[in-house]
């Protein structure tokens, strides 16, 4: 019995991984460019509402893209505030999160006639089976069958991310804006547009992840469905030391931790805990991970710092 549950638990963990990893990769671009983005949660929320609307109107592919695009547009508020007007990054991020909740309710009332959710069963993508892995014994195959195609795409996103960051001129300049904006500017790199780009990419990723949550997992928009996943993605980013592959490992850890309360509540030891304590597991895991590994983290040197360049 527990082994069969394990397959389902991994399947759910992989879905949470997808949300966390996509959002964290977005955050990686933003922070590598020097802008701390705790507004990821709010950007995800915008992705859920716009993605849900998009899939109802134009189908799931368009829904995911509309989610990404609206995340991008909304993130420009954060970019404008932090890059151009030097508003404290945390303050702006908190405001993004506050406004996103209000905006989502407003739009939900507009789109669905009720402030807190859409009708359930909105259109989603056809699910796929991963060849070979879906035949794994002991019920583990269930983890890799009937999967949203976005899940493997999330894993594969590591490749373009690494390529862009390390092998392109844009990536090099983006990182220099986050590490040493003064030196970058001296070398003729314009910091502000790069930081706008970094924040915009984070908005697109987080919006996409939110749309994935609404369309592919819950198949509806519901207020509060992001449940703080944007913040856990931020923790995965820190735990992964702002490096794409390590962030993937961190996101897997937190993804599985998220799945425990929902799918492993019957497992030995865990079943002895009251439900509310099981729900604390992801948060406790995050705190322990952040406190335990943080000695080894190495954030972008200029992240969180306003850059008052010559153009400012």
């Amino acid at each position, binding site marked *: 019995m527990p082994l069969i549950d394990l397959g389902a638990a991994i399947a759910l963990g992989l879905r949470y991984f997808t949300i966390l990893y996509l959002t964290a990769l977005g955050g990686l671009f933003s922070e590598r460019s020097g802008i701390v983005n*705790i507004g990821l949660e709010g950007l995800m929320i915008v992705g859920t509402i716009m993605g849900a609307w998009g899939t109802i109107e134009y189908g799931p592919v368009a829904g995911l893209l509309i989610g990404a695009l609206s995340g991008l547009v909304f993130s420009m*508020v954060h970019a404008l*505030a932090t890059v151009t*007007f*030097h*508003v*404290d990054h*945390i*303050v*702006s991020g*908190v*405001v993004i*999160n*506050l*406004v996103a*909740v*209000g*905006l989502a*309710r*407003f739009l939900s*009332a507009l789109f669905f006639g009720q*402030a807190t959710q859409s009708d359930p069963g909105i259109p989603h993508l056809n699910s796929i089976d991963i060849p070979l892995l879906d035949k794994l014994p002991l019920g583990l195959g269930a983890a890799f069958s009937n999967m949203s195609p976005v899940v493997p795409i999330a894993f594969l996103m590591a490749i373009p991310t690494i390529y862009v960051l390390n092998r392109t001129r844009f990536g090099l300049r983006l990182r220099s804006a986050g590490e040493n904006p003064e030196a970058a500017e001296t070398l003729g790199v314009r910091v502000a547009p790069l930081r706008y780009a970094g924040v915009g990419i984070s908005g697109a990723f987080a919006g996409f992840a939110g749309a994935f949550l609404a369309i592919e997992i819950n198949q509806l928009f519901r207020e509060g469905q992001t449940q*703080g996943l944007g*913040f856990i993605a*931020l*923790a995965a980013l*820190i735990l992964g030391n702002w490096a794409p592959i390590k962030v993937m490992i961190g996101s897997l850890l937190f993804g599985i931790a998220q799945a425990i309360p929902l799918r492993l509540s019957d497992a030995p030891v865990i079943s002895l805990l*009251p*439900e*509310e*304590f099981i*729900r*604390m597991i*992801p*948060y*406790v895991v*995050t*705190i322990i991970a*952040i*406190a*335990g590994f*943080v*000695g080894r*983290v190495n954030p972008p040197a200029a992240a969180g710092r306003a850059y008052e360049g010559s153009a400012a």
Partner: protein
Amino acid sequence: MATAVSGAPKRSRSSRLELIGGQILAFVGAALFAGVIGGIIIVLYGENPLFVYATVLNYATARPEDIAQVAENATPLIFSGLAVAVAFKAGMFNIGVEGQYIIGMLTAAIAALYLDRLPGVLLVPAVVLSAVLGAAAWAAIPAILKVKTGAHEVVTTIMMNGIAISLVAWAILNPLKSTGEQSVDLRTNLFPGKALMPSLAEPLGLPSSVHLTLLFPIALLACALVWFFLYRTRLGYEVRAVGSSSGSAEAGGISIGAAQIKVFLISGVLAGFVGLNHLLGDKGYLGNNYEVGLGFAGIAVAFLGRNHPVGIALSALLIGVLIRGEDGIALSTELPTEVLIILQGVLILSVVVAYELVRRTVARRQLREEAVVEAAAPAEA
């Protein structure tokens, strides 16, 4: 460049006045800007923005009980704004006010239910003390983790918020579950009447639907105490030194870690008061219907108020007006009340941006004046 390093203490009196005047101007300008943006949204929704704003103002100020309602709304926001601001003065973000006040409500409920043998004169202070200790203990964990391991308080406090919500959900379902007939209600037993916060409604001749309590004057007193702490005590000085430049503070012999832990505890103490008006002035029990989001609202209040106790009191009252206005909007227009949340967000961002623009303008002018002085007397290098 030199002015940027030497910073605030050298600012002359006239330029300080100029800065304060500029900030007031900035606030007004930003509020107008936010009103225009909000107005555009309202027009898109097919309503008249002037009518909507008039409704908000009318609902908030027409009768004495409306004003009392605004003060009631502002009470928790003053405490959470102060909690955020105190930590911010030390360069830390207490995003965990949310979880801290939720734990404070839990420990207050425990005291109210189990210390019921105490007379009222002692019980109310004991309940408040219990709230404060619970909230401060909850704040201590991320503070200690930050100082000992470097774990960033923004992430850990957010996680502590999630844990607090689950802990309270568990407590009101298990050890504190009400023993009364209506077991469908997820809540504790009613607190004894003597554990409740003395109401100001009756003495002021207001209807009992207003839950204005002694906590409102206590909140104003807290503003004064926080001001005194920050600007007139040694620890307050250290806190501000750590916040403005940790490097020079350390060189000046200040232990950064110790100052950060102490200030986070003070922040937690203030957070402990946030949930009390709801708990002891309104409901009289702890249930799963408690108000959430007051901690995050505190961040908005703190930054609207420029992290200064007076500014915090004023901006809490302003947000109190907007919250009261939601009722008016819901009753008199077709508009979703979320418009006011969006309006708040636009207001905060535009105010913060406006402050920054003023700061830049004043700094630039000062730089120019100093350049003139230096050009006139170029003897020293």
